[in-house]
C-alpha cells in the first residue's frame, strides 16, 4: 500500500485536498496532485504512477480526453483509472467506461467508497 504512487487530478483545490486527506487516511501517502488533464500528462511524463484518480469537468483538458489519451499511449495505457465526478447520467457513465475508465465514483463520495473502489481496481491488475 505504501509503495503505491497515485496521481489525483481535479480542478477544484477543495476537492484535491479532500481526496488527498481521504487517501492519507486510507494509508496512501505518495500522492501527486494535478489541476487538469494537461497538467496530469506533464506530470506523467516525469514520474510513473500506479493509479490515476481523475475528475471529469476540467479546463484545458477534461477527464475523458485525458483517459482517451492515456489509453492510446503505449507507456501509459495499462495504468488503472478511477473517475470521481458529479456526472451521474447513465450515458456519461457509459461514455467514461467506453473511454477506458476502470471504476467510477459519483460526488459526493464517502471514504469507504473510495477505499473499496481502489481495492477493486488494484485487485484486478
Amino acid at each position: 500500500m505504501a509503495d503505491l504512487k497515485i496521481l489525483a487530478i481535479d480542478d477544484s483545490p477543495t476537492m484535491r485536498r479532500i481526496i488527498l486527506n481521504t487517501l492519507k487516511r486510507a494509508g496512501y501517502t505518495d500522492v501527486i496532485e494535478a489541476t487538469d488533464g494537461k497538467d496530469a500528462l506533464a506530470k506523467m511524463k516525469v514520474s510513473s504512477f500506479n493509479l490515476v484518480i481523475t475528475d471529469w469537468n476540467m479546463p484545458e483538458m477534461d477527464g475523458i480526453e485525458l483517459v482517451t489519451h492515456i489509453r492510446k499511449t503505449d507507456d501509459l495505457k495499462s495504468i488503472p483509472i478511477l473517475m470521481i465526478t458529479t456526472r451521474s447520467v447513465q450515458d456519461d457513465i457509459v461514455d467514461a467506461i467506453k473511454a477506458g475508465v476502470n471504476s467510477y465514483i459519483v460526488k459526493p463520495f464517502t471514504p469507504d467508497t473510495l477505499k473499496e473502489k481502489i481495492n477493486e481496481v488494484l485487485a484486478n491488475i
Partner: protein
Amino acid sequence: MPFTDKVRSELEKLTGSVDSMMENLRKMENPIMESRERLSQANAQLDKINSQTEAAAHQILDMVEQMIDYQEKSVSLCSELSEFFKRLRSKDREIYREKLNRISEMASASQNNAFLIMDTLQFQDITSQQMNHASSLLEDIESRLHNLFKVFDGKELLGVEEPVKKEGRAYDPDAGFIEGRNQSEVDAIVTSTVEAGITDAGLSDRGNRG
C-alpha cells in the same frame, strides 16, 4: 386609386410603422443597457461568492486538519499514559484506566466527526459548479443583449465593452449535492457496461478487467 398610388400609400404606412418601431426600440436602449450592466454585476457577484466559499472551505479544512492532528496526538498520549498506569497500585490503576479509555473514545469520536466535516466540504465543489453554470448562462444572455443592442443602433456601441466570457469555466450543468444517482446505481451501470463489453478503448487496454 391607381396601383402606384396604392403602393406608395402602403409603403408610407410601412415606413411609418418601421419608424415608430425603431423609436420604441430606441426607448428600450437604456433599460437594455442597464440590464446588461446588472447581468455583468450579477456575474461578478457569483464569481465573488465562488471564490469566497472556496476560501472559507479551505479555512475550515485548515482547522479540521489541525483538529485531526490534535486528536491523533491525544489518543497517542492516552496510550502512553496507559503504559505509565501499569506501575500504579491495582486499585488506582483500574480507575485511571477507565477514565483514560473514556478520553481516548471521545477523542476518536471527535476525530470521526472531523473527518465527516471534511467529507461534507465536497459541497463547495458542487455549488461552485452550479454557480459556474449560472454565470455561463448570464454571460450568454449578456452577449445576446449586446448583439441585440448593436442591431437597434446599427453601429458599434461607443464606450460599451463587448462582453467577455470568462475562460476556464468547467462544470457539470446537472451537478447536485443530494439529487444525484447513488453509488450503487452507478456501480450497476458500470457492471452492465463492462459485461456488455462496449468499450472504445477495448478491455485489454483498460489497465485491468475490472
